[in-house]
Protein backbone atom coordinates (compact mmCIF):
# COMPACT_ATOMS: atom_id res chain seq x y z
CA UNK A 1 0.00 0.00 0.00
CA UNK A 2 1.40 3.33 -1.07
CA UNK A 3 0.04 6.45 0.57
CA UNK A 4 0.40 9.98 -0.68
CA UNK A 5 -0.60 12.83 1.61
CA UNK A 6 -2.16 12.64 5.02
CA UNK A 7 -5.66 13.55 6.10
CA UNK A 8 -6.15 13.60 9.82
CA UNK A 9 -9.25 11.45 10.17
CA UNK A 10 -9.80 11.60 13.91
CA UNK A 11 -11.13 15.11 14.48
CA UNK A 12 -13.03 15.20 11.18
CA UNK A 13 -16.65 14.38 11.76
CA UNK A 14 -19.90 14.61 9.88
CA UNK A 15 -21.39 18.07 9.75
CA UNK A 16 -24.69 19.69 8.93
CA UNK A 17 -27.50 17.23 8.45
CA UNK A 18 -24.85 14.54 8.02
CA UNK A 19 -26.11 13.69 4.56
CA UNK A 20 -23.73 11.25 2.99
CA UNK A 21 -24.23 10.90 -0.72
CA UNK A 22 -22.97 7.91 -2.65
CA UNK A 23 -22.66 7.92 -6.39
CA UNK A 24 -21.66 4.97 -8.55
CA UNK A 25 -19.35 5.59 -11.48
CA UNK A 26 -19.97 2.73 -13.88
CA UNK A 27 -20.76 4.40 -17.17
CA UNK A 28 -19.73 7.59 -18.91
CA UNK A 29 -23.12 9.15 -18.13
CA UNK A 30 -22.33 8.74 -14.44
CA UNK A 31 -19.54 11.31 -14.76
CA UNK A 32 -22.13 13.95 -15.61
CA UNK A 33 -24.63 12.97 -12.91
CA UNK A 34 -21.78 12.74 -10.37
CA UNK A 35 -21.01 16.40 -11.12
CA UNK A 36 -24.64 17.32 -10.47
CA UNK A 37 -24.61 15.49 -7.14
CA UNK A 38 -21.39 17.23 -6.07
CA UNK A 39 -22.73 20.62 -7.17
CA UNK A 40 -25.83 20.14 -5.02
CA UNK A 41 -23.69 19.13 -2.06
CA UNK A 42 -21.49 22.24 -2.41
CA UNK A 43 -24.61 24.42 -2.52
CA UNK A 44 -26.03 22.77 0.58
CA UNK A 45 -22.67 23.21 2.34
CA UNK A 46 -22.80 26.94 1.60
CA UNK A 47 -19.78 27.24 -0.68
CA UNK A 48 -19.35 30.32 -2.86
CA UNK A 49 -19.37 30.11 -6.65
CA UNK A 50 -15.60 29.80 -7.15
CA UNK A 51 -15.28 27.10 -4.50
CA UNK A 52 -18.26 25.27 -6.00
CA UNK A 53 -16.49 25.33 -9.34
CA UNK A 54 -13.21 24.11 -7.81
CA UNK A 55 -14.86 21.22 -6.01
CA UNK A 56 -17.02 20.11 -8.94
CA UNK A 57 -14.02 20.28 -11.27
CA UNK A 58 -11.88 18.25 -8.85
CA UNK A 59 -14.68 15.69 -8.53
CA UNK A 60 -14.91 15.49 -12.31
CA UNK A 61 -11.18 14.75 -12.58
CA UNK A 62 -11.26 12.13 -9.83
CA UNK A 63 -14.40 10.44 -11.17
CA UNK A 64 -12.90 10.32 -14.65
CA UNK A 65 -9.70 8.79 -13.29
CA UNK A 66 -11.73 6.09 -11.56
CA UNK A 67 -13.73 5.45 -14.72
CA UNK A 68 -10.85 5.46 -17.20
CA UNK A 69 -8.07 3.88 -15.13
CA UNK A 70 -9.97 2.04 -12.42
CA UNK A 71 -12.75 0.56 -14.53
CA UNK A 72 -15.34 2.44 -12.50
CA UNK A 73 -15.77 3.11 -8.82
CA UNK A 74 -17.73 4.84 -6.13
CA UNK A 75 -17.84 8.51 -5.16
CA UNK A 76 -18.82 9.37 -1.60
CA UNK A 77 -19.62 12.99 -0.76
CA UNK A 78 -19.83 13.99 2.86
CA UNK A 79 -20.08 17.29 4.75
CA UNK A 80 -17.42 17.35 7.48
CA UNK A 81 -16.28 19.66 10.26
CA UNK A 82 -13.10 20.09 12.25
CA UNK A 83 -12.15 22.77 14.75
CA UNK A 84 -15.34 24.67 14.00
CA UNK A 85 -14.71 24.74 10.26
CA UNK A 86 -17.06 23.19 7.78
CA UNK A 87 -16.08 21.50 4.58
CA UNK A 88 -16.90 18.88 2.04
CA UNK A 89 -15.09 15.58 1.66
CA UNK A 90 -14.93 13.65 -1.59
CA UNK A 91 -13.79 10.05 -1.62
CA UNK A 92 -13.41 8.16 -4.88
CA UNK A 93 -12.59 4.46 -4.69
CA UNK A 94 -11.99 2.07 -7.54
CA UNK A 95 -11.00 -1.57 -7.79
CA UNK A 96 -8.67 -1.02 -10.69
CA UNK A 97 -5.03 -1.99 -11.11
CA UNK A 98 -3.83 0.69 -8.70
CA UNK A 99 -1.23 3.36 -9.34
CA UNK A 100 2.28 1.94 -9.61
CA UNK A 101 4.13 5.24 -9.32
CA UNK A 102 2.21 7.79 -7.25
CA UNK A 103 4.86 10.50 -7.51
CA UNK A 104 4.79 10.27 -11.30
CA UNK A 105 0.98 10.30 -11.30
CA UNK A 106 1.04 13.73 -9.66
CA UNK A 107 3.37 15.21 -12.24
CA UNK A 108 1.68 17.59 -14.66
CA UNK A 109 1.75 16.17 -18.13
CA UNK A 110 2.04 12.57 -16.92
CA UNK A 111 -0.75 10.57 -18.44
CA UNK A 112 -1.59 7.00 -19.27
CA UNK A 113 -5.02 7.89 -20.58
CA UNK A 114 -7.00 10.36 -22.62
CA UNK A 115 -6.61 13.48 -20.49
CA UNK A 116 -3.97 16.14 -20.29
CA UNK A 117 -2.15 14.52 -17.42
CA UNK A 118 -3.36 17.23 -15.06
CA UNK A 119 -6.10 15.19 -13.41
CA UNK A 120 -4.60 14.06 -10.11
CA UNK A 121 -2.18 16.95 -9.57
CA UNK A 122 -4.81 19.43 -10.69
CA UNK A 123 -7.47 18.01 -8.37
CA UNK A 124 -4.98 18.22 -5.50
CA UNK A 125 -4.40 21.92 -6.17
CA UNK A 126 -8.15 22.59 -6.19
CA UNK A 127 -8.68 21.01 -2.77
CA UNK A 128 -7.24 21.83 0.67
CA UNK A 129 -6.39 18.32 1.79
CA UNK A 130 -5.60 15.38 -0.40
CA UNK A 131 -4.70 11.77 0.13
CA UNK A 132 -4.20 8.86 -2.24
CA UNK A 133 -3.99 5.24 -1.13
CA UNK A 134 -3.14 2.68 -3.74
CA UNK A 135 -1.65 -0.77 -4.05
CA UNK A 136 -1.00 -2.82 -7.19
CA UNK A 137 -4.05 -4.94 -7.88
CA UNK A 138 -6.01 -3.47 -5.00
CA UNK A 139 -7.40 -0.32 -6.49
CA UNK A 140 -7.06 3.32 -5.59
CA UNK A 141 -8.84 5.52 -3.07
CA UNK A 142 -8.54 9.28 -3.30
CA UNK A 143 -9.82 11.43 -0.44
CA UNK A 144 -10.01 15.20 -0.73
CA UNK A 145 -11.42 17.95 1.47
CA UNK A 146 -12.20 21.54 0.70
CA UNK A 147 -12.86 23.81 3.71
CA UNK A 148 -15.32 26.66 3.59
CA UNK A 149 -14.17 30.15 4.58
CA UNK A 150 -10.71 31.77 4.75
CA UNK A 151 -7.75 29.43 4.61
Amino acid at each position, binding site marked *: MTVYGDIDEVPTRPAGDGTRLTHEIRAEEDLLSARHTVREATLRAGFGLVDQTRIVTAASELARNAYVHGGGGILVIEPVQRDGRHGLRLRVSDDGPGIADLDAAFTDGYTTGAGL*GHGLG*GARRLMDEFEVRSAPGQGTTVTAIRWNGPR
Partner: protein
Amino acid sequence: MNGGTRGGVPILRLGDVLVTGLLNELDDKGALAFTEELTERIVADRARGVVIDISRLEIIDSFVARTLMELTTTSRLLGSRVIVAGMRPAVAITLVELGLRLSGVETTLNAEQGLRALGWEQTLVPPAERGAR
Protein backbone atom coordinates in the same frame (compact mmCIF):
# COMPACT_ATOMS: atom_id res chain seq x y z
CA MET B 1 -25.55 14.45 -26.47
CA ASN B 2 -28.68 12.39 -26.83
CA GLY B 3 -28.40 10.51 -30.07
CA GLY B 4 -27.94 12.52 -33.22
CA THR B 5 -28.03 16.07 -31.93
CA ARG B 6 -25.41 16.99 -29.43
CA GLY B 7 -27.30 19.04 -26.93
CA GLY B 8 -29.28 21.35 -29.14
CA VAL B 9 -26.84 24.15 -29.88
CA PRO B 10 -26.93 24.66 -33.63
CA ILE B 11 -23.94 25.73 -35.67
CA LEU B 12 -25.02 28.95 -37.39
CA ARG B 13 -23.32 30.37 -40.45
CA LEU B 14 -22.93 34.15 -40.74
CA GLY B 15 -21.19 34.76 -44.04
CA ASP B 16 -17.84 33.03 -43.76
CA VAL B 17 -18.02 32.71 -39.97
CA LEU B 18 -19.59 29.94 -37.91
CA VAL B 19 -21.18 30.66 -34.53
CA THR B 20 -22.01 27.98 -31.99
CA GLY B 21 -21.83 27.22 -28.30
CA LEU B 22 -21.37 24.55 -25.68
CA LEU B 23 -23.95 23.70 -23.04
CA ASN B 24 -23.15 22.83 -19.47
CA GLU B 25 -24.37 19.28 -19.99
CA LEU B 26 -21.37 18.49 -22.16
CA ASP B 27 -20.23 14.92 -21.65
CA ASP B 28 -17.32 13.13 -23.30
CA LYS B 29 -19.33 11.77 -26.21
CA GLY B 30 -20.90 15.19 -26.77
CA ALA B 31 -17.49 16.86 -26.79
CA LEU B 32 -16.16 14.45 -29.41
CA ALA B 33 -19.32 14.73 -31.53
CA PHE B 34 -19.03 18.50 -31.36
CA THR B 35 -15.44 18.38 -32.67
CA GLU B 36 -16.43 16.16 -35.57
CA GLU B 37 -19.51 18.17 -36.54
CA LEU B 38 -17.73 21.50 -36.31
CA THR B 39 -14.69 20.47 -38.35
CA GLU B 40 -16.98 19.05 -41.04
CA ARG B 41 -18.95 22.29 -41.13
CA ILE B 42 -15.76 24.37 -41.34
CA VAL B 43 -14.83 22.61 -44.56
CA ALA B 44 -18.36 22.37 -45.98
CA ASP B 45 -19.13 26.07 -45.32
CA ARG B 46 -15.58 27.25 -46.06
CA ALA B 47 -15.58 29.10 -42.75
CA ARG B 48 -12.55 31.23 -42.09
CA GLY B 49 -13.51 31.71 -38.46
CA VAL B 50 -15.54 30.09 -35.66
CA VAL B 51 -16.89 31.64 -32.48
CA ILE B 52 -17.66 29.11 -29.72
CA ASP B 53 -19.70 30.62 -26.89
CA ILE B 54 -18.89 28.84 -23.63
CA SER B 55 -20.74 31.18 -21.26
CA ARG B 56 -23.06 28.32 -20.29
CA LEU B 57 -20.21 26.03 -19.24
CA GLU B 58 -20.14 25.86 -15.44
CA ILE B 59 -16.96 23.82 -15.34
CA ILE B 60 -14.10 22.99 -17.68
CA ASP B 61 -12.19 19.92 -16.61
CA SER B 62 -9.04 18.60 -18.27
CA PHE B 63 -11.06 16.61 -20.79
CA VAL B 64 -13.05 19.60 -22.04
CA ALA B 65 -9.87 21.71 -22.00
CA ARG B 66 -8.15 19.15 -24.16
CA THR B 67 -11.14 19.09 -26.52
CA LEU B 68 -11.00 22.88 -26.95
CA MET B 69 -7.24 22.84 -27.54
CA GLU B 70 -7.43 20.05 -30.09
CA LEU B 71 -10.39 21.65 -31.82
CA THR B 72 -8.44 24.90 -32.12
CA THR B 73 -5.41 23.14 -33.58
CA THR B 74 -7.47 21.02 -35.96
CA SER B 75 -9.35 24.08 -37.20
CA ARG B 76 -6.12 26.01 -37.66
CA LEU B 77 -4.76 23.16 -39.79
CA LEU B 78 -7.92 23.40 -41.88
CA GLY B 79 -7.34 27.14 -42.26
CA SER B 80 -9.96 28.42 -39.82
CA ARG B 81 -9.57 30.59 -36.73
CA VAL B 82 -11.39 29.50 -33.57
CA ILE B 83 -12.34 32.00 -30.88
CA VAL B 84 -13.60 30.72 -27.52
CA ALA B 85 -15.88 33.36 -26.04
CA GLY B 86 -17.45 34.15 -22.69
CA MET B 87 -15.62 31.98 -20.17
CA ARG B 88 -17.05 32.44 -16.67
CA PRO B 89 -14.65 33.97 -14.11
CA ALA B 90 -14.94 31.00 -11.73
CA VAL B 91 -14.07 28.67 -14.60
CA ALA B 92 -11.01 30.76 -15.51
CA ILE B 93 -9.78 30.77 -11.88
CA THR B 94 -10.25 27.02 -11.62
CA LEU B 95 -8.51 26.33 -14.94
CA VAL B 96 -5.44 28.29 -13.84
CA GLU B 97 -5.30 26.38 -10.56
CA LEU B 98 -5.68 23.12 -12.45
CA GLY B 99 -2.59 24.12 -14.41
CA LEU B 100 -4.41 24.46 -17.72
CA ARG B 101 -3.71 27.62 -19.69
CA LEU B 102 -5.50 26.59 -22.88
CA SER B 103 -2.31 27.44 -24.75
CA GLY B 104 -2.97 28.46 -28.31
CA VAL B 105 -6.69 28.99 -27.77
CA GLU B 106 -7.84 32.51 -28.64
CA THR B 107 -10.43 33.91 -26.22
CA THR B 108 -12.72 36.94 -25.98
CA LEU B 109 -14.92 38.33 -23.23
CA ASN B 110 -18.10 37.45 -25.06
CA ALA B 111 -19.44 36.22 -28.38
CA GLU B 112 -19.94 39.74 -29.70
CA GLN B 113 -16.26 40.55 -29.21
CA GLY B 114 -15.40 37.25 -30.82
CA LEU B 115 -17.39 38.20 -33.89
CA ARG B 116 -15.79 41.63 -33.87
CA ALA B 117 -12.35 40.02 -33.85
CA LEU B 118 -13.41 38.17 -36.97
CA GLY B 119 -14.48 41.38 -38.68
CA TRP B 120 -18.21 41.55 -37.91
CA GLU B 121 -18.26 44.86 -36.04
CA GLN B 122 -20.20 47.09 -38.44
CA THR B 123 -22.68 44.43 -39.38
CA LEU B 124 -23.53 43.50 -35.83
CA VAL B 125 -23.68 46.83 -34.07
CA PRO B 126 -24.43 49.76 -36.35
CA PRO B 127 -23.06 52.93 -34.64
CA ALA B 128 -26.49 54.57 -34.63
CA GLU B 129 -27.94 51.82 -32.42
CA ARG B 130 -25.14 51.74 -29.87
CA GLY B 131 -26.74 54.16 -27.47
CA ALA B 132 -29.90 52.09 -27.28
CA ARG B 133 -28.17 48.89 -26.19
